[in-house]
């Protein structure tokens, strides 16, 4: 398995687009995460208060809250790492190296596993970066830095990796069907930002259950939008079993779809 991860690294190590996109993702994450305090300060300067309270006292960096806040934020920027998945898959079709890999002696299952391992690696890397950002911001700002406080809700870190991985599987499935990078990116963006939100809105209005069953709705429901708790709305600060199962179900659908594509189609 390690050999397959190395293979993917050898393929991408001098790909400029890969490093630029990876950089953009982490810099964006870092900037937004670190400017949270500044944003609250700005709101206070603008005279924004909620029920007489100043925004700066909101505990966004407390360890009890920070993991969910960061996990949600990381998933919000998911398009950037997803583009890396698209590059990794569509490059092969563009250069016909997927055929050459097989001819040279890779099995189709190994090809599948090397792409899957790349997606897992990327998801874990993102979780690691979130862990580091969270620890830095937490120790700088949190009121309680006990181990209990740090570990409380730290489950959102692996949850973030899992959530990203599921989105990567969806992306990889699209890339394998479409095979062209520009077109895949377009479809992914339009589906993620328009088609599914609109479909979920309409469906959800009439049949709330079906609306929440759409794949991306299921994925994003793993980490609930956290910031509504600061205006005292009821906000889940845990990972719901139903949400987890819905997302996992879709994960298996896409995983099977990817495997089927790679096994059955002629290269």
């Amino acid at each position, binding site marked *: 398995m390690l050999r397959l991860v190395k293979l993917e690294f050898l393929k991408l190590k*001098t790909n400029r687009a890969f490093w630029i996109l990876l950089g953009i993702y982490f810099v964006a994450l870092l900037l937004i995460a670190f400017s949270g305090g500044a944003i609250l300060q700005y709101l206070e300067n603008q005279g924004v208060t909620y029920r007489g309270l100043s925004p700066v006292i909101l505990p966004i960096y407390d360890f009890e809250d920070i993991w969910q806040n960061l996990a949600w934020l990381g998933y919000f920027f998911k398009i950037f790492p997803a583009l890396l998945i698209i590059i990794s898959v569509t*490059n092969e079709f563009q*250069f016909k*190296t997927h*055929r050459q890999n*097989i001819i*040279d*002696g*890779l*099995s189709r299952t190994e090809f599948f596993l090397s792409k899957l391992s790349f997606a897992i690696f990327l998801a874990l890397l993102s979780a690691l970066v979130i862990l580091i950002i969270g620890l830095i911001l937490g120790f700088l700002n949190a009121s309680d830095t006990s181990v209990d406080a740090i570990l409380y809700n730290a489950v959102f870190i692996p949850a973030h990796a899992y959530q990203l991985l599921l989105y990567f599987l969806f992306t990889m499935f699209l890339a394998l069907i479409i095979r062209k990078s520009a077109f895949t990116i377009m479809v992914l963006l339009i589906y993620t930002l328009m088609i599914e939100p609109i479909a979920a809105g309409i469906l959800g209005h009439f049949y709330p259950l079906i609306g929440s069953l759409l794949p991306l709705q299921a994925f994003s429901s793993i980490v609930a939008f956290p910031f509504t708790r600061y205006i005292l709305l009821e906000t889940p600060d845990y990972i719901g079993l139903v949400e987890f199962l819905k997302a996992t179900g879709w994960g298996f659908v896409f995983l099977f779809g990817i495997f089927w594509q790679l096994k059955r189609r002629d290269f």
Partner: protein
Amino acid sequence: MENVLEINSLTKKFGKITAVDSLDLTVEKGSVFGILGPNGSGKSTTLGMLLGVVNPASGSFKWFQGEQTHKVRRRIGAILESPCFYHYLSAENNLKVVAEIKQVDTSRIDVVLDRVGLLSRKNDPFKNYSLGMKQRLAIASALLSNPEVMILDEPTNGLDPQGIADIRDLIIDLANEGRTIILASHLLDEVQRICTDFAVLRLGKKIFQGKVADLDQDKTNVEVGSDDPEKLAAFLSDSHFAASFRKEGSNFKLALKPGIEITDFHRALIASGIVLNRLQINTNTLEQKFLQLLKSESNA
């Protein structure tokens, strides 16, 4: 003789079209095997199946008479159609990917790059290479695992005369090193020059398999011309020398009947008072054999 490859009723369908139709073929170790056929006869599809990129509809094939897994492909060096590499990677980094797949030590990379004359350009990205250099890199890549079998599909396509000559020399060198070579081509003189065995495919079916050396033993074809073509035509139709003949331009092409020597034929001409201004003996070339095979098949 040990067989490197055995193919048993291999079939591939694309929708309604049968691209390869229950093909049987064996390739002996150490032979240079040419697969001939017009465009669309199933050559590339067959090679694609042998290399795992095309899924067969039915039938089977066996490499090296052993257990069949993707690992046998590491012992084969293949160059199909155009060279396929990562455009943004350097030659060296591209070969590192191949070495990782084939589980070959990376020290081999410089060896094979040197052999194809690309060592000094190994840090250049693939996209900056000329077509000839790309083809040479493909050869280097195929040689990386020091393979027992080389598969080449139209290896001289799109190359300039120098490139074609280089590839031809390389194939001969590789064959002399004792490697088995399977070469798909529609360039018949190319196959005749370098192959020991050949098979002809037409519409996905094998219509002939034989040795190149056996070709010359067929009947002799002669081309003759005279200042008095009428007299020559009369001689040809009346005499018992020609199995068949036809007029081509101002000359006649004929096939001598089996057992008749060219000297007998010439003596009879002189005796009849016919003076030739042209006499050319064509040994049975692969091209003639090929066209003849295709013709007899389409009549059948």
